[in-house]
């Protein structure tokens, strides 16, 4: 292996008290890959994202970003090294406008840091980048609206916008389409695909249509362990995955169809 992976997890585990949530996860993501992390509820998908992004420190193991250790660092340190994440429940700057939300997200990466000796109005590159992201997430008409006054779908879009605005190369999206209708989801997946071109993407997703449509590779997480990590076709064909996860989904679908037939 000559080139470092964009993101690599080595024997990561995490316990809360006596409960072990993540049990020795290994995962190596190449630069530019789109990986979907799937698994039943409580499998530890969100916890895994929290460990990678620095919200929690892992109990054991190593996390490497472009070959550099990042485990145990604070979230802002990890972000400065080029990893950004979104949240399952929209996590915005509620009393700031759409534009200000995005501008905040680009400031550090463009070197403005804690500057109080220069005006934001003169930060041409930051303003342009914020405008550009705003157009990408199709909120340019809502420029001056406060984040708290946006519709749910708009808030989800802004959540993604803040995540990608800073120019991080590795993007983690935690259930980006959660709570969206089918038509909204389809549009949104297209949006995600657009804004993450050329970047490494990890996403937690429940909608199997989205997973198979978006991902280059799928990681199946069950009870804190990676059961399979491969291209979608291989994962779909994997008997253990079928049994542990997809099987239960299929069973549910069958039950649904039986129920609907019985009803008619």
């Amino acid at each position: 292996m000559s080139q470092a992976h964009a993101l690599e997890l080595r024997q990561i585990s995490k316990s809360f008290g006596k409960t072990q949530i993540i049990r020795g996860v290994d995962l190596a993501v190449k630069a530019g890959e789109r990986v979907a992390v799937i698994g039943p509820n409580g499998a530890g998908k969100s916890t895994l994202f929290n460990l990678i992004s620095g919200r929690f420190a892992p109990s054991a193991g190593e996390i490497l970003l472009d070959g550099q250790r990042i485990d145990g660092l604070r979230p802002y340190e990890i972000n400065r090294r080029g990893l950004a994440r979104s949240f399952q429940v929209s996590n915005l700057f509620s009393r700031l406008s759409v534009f200000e939300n995005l501008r905040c997200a680009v400031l550090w990466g463009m070197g403005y840091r804690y500057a109080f000796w220069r005006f934001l109005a003169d930060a041409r590159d930051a303003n342009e980048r914020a405008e550009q992201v705003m157009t990408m997430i199709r909120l340019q008409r809502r420029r001056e609206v406060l984040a708290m006054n946006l519709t749910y779908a708009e808030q989800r879009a802004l959540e993604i916008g803040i995540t990608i605005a800073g120019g991080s190369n590795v993007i983690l999206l935690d259930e980006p389409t959660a709570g969206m209708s089918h038509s909204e989801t389809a549009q949104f997946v297209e949006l995600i695909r657009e804004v993450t071109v050329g970047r490494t993407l990890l996403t937690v997703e429940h909608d199997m249509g989205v997973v198979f449509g978006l991902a280059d590779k799928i990681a199946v997480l069950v009870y804190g362990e990676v059961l399979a990590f491969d291209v979608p076709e291989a994962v779909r064909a994997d008997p253990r995955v079928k049994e542990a996860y997809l099987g239960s989904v299929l069973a549910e679908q069958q039950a649904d169809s039986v129920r609907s037939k019985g009803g008619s």
Partner: protein
Amino acid sequence: MAMAENVAATAVASSRNMNWRWVIWGGYALVLIVAPLLWRSSLSHTMLSQMGIAIVACLAYNMLLGQGGMLSFGHAVYSGLGSFFAIHALNMVSGGQLTLPVSLVPLVGGLAGMVFAVLLGYVTTKKAGTPFAMITLGIGELVFAMSLMFPGFFGGEGGISGNRVAGKPLFGITFGPQIELYYLIALYTFVCTAAMFAFTRTPLGRMLNAVRDNPERVEFIGYDTQFVRYFAFIASGFFMGIAGGLGAMNFEIVTAEVVGAARSGAYLLFTFLGGATFFFGPIIGAVLMVLALVLLSELTLAWLLWLGLIFTFMVMYAPGGIASLIMMNLRVAAFGKLKPLLPWYLVLGVAALMILAGGGAMIEMVYHLQLNQALGPQMKFLGVPLNAHGVGSWAAAALLLLAGIVLFEILRRRFARLWNRIQEEIEDTVRQREAAA
């Protein structure tokens, strides 16, 4: 194409904002310059000087409260220590140990406030939210206790006094007459206001807002929230110190109460009353603070009780303070819908006055009975003779109060309905404009 139009529209809007900005800042400067010429009495000049100082202090306090979401219960520490260092500097200038123009003494206060904010703020800003508030309370008590322990520096019970006519006068300005000092204070007020406004337009100032709204997310976009809070705290401490230094020059005496909890509480209360959510809110609060502390306390013994009542009502019904009331009405006016509201304000005002008169008469009668009994039961309230022992006076006051409350509540409900309808109409208009854009 759409992008270009957007940019053009933004440019037009910002140039319009530019013009407005000149008008507003020019107007602010004009008010500061003209005020002492309109109110010429020496009491007015003292009060105007205090207002200028209070404006700096409340704006500095609001850097934490309104812009950073940090509730400090001990911010008088930084203005107070600024006052002490300034008065010592002034005395050193008088004694010839220090060569410094008197006009720069407030800066000594500012530096002192900043240095202590660097020291104490590091501990304070390690936490946010409730622990932050608790630490500020603790440090406030600590510094107040220290002020009594070191009489050499803090002057014990009597405080430290000085004389602002010190050193060589520049262009014949000695700062002896109050009016000369007022203009020095006004200059500091204007410059500090401009500097603090500029701060809100910088990357750090904006990230401070972000930390207020959502500290967790800030960490995930590359910023250390503790650092943002710490830097804002230091900046706030600097301006608090300047206010303290100006206070030392104005009163020429500094006692331990300037670092006390009551002073910290006053900053919090009036910043909130003025409106913490808008930059200019604390300016209104500061003016009210001086009016309340100087005039209201002259008018009635029960002034603290009145203040408490007003504060409670504001927190409950207008948590954005007076500034937000103004801005909401300006918004309605901008959509041309203010006119139907005006008669309502008139009748609501009448009802409120009835409550004030009735309730006020009763409060004053109680105070009269408790404190001025030796003078007999006869008293005057707003020029109306009352008998504090008379059933008639009490019944009349109670009736007025009750009628006022009932009337106010009926009017308020109807007004609220009208207000909500107008807001909905405005929302509709906004949506239509958005769709058309």
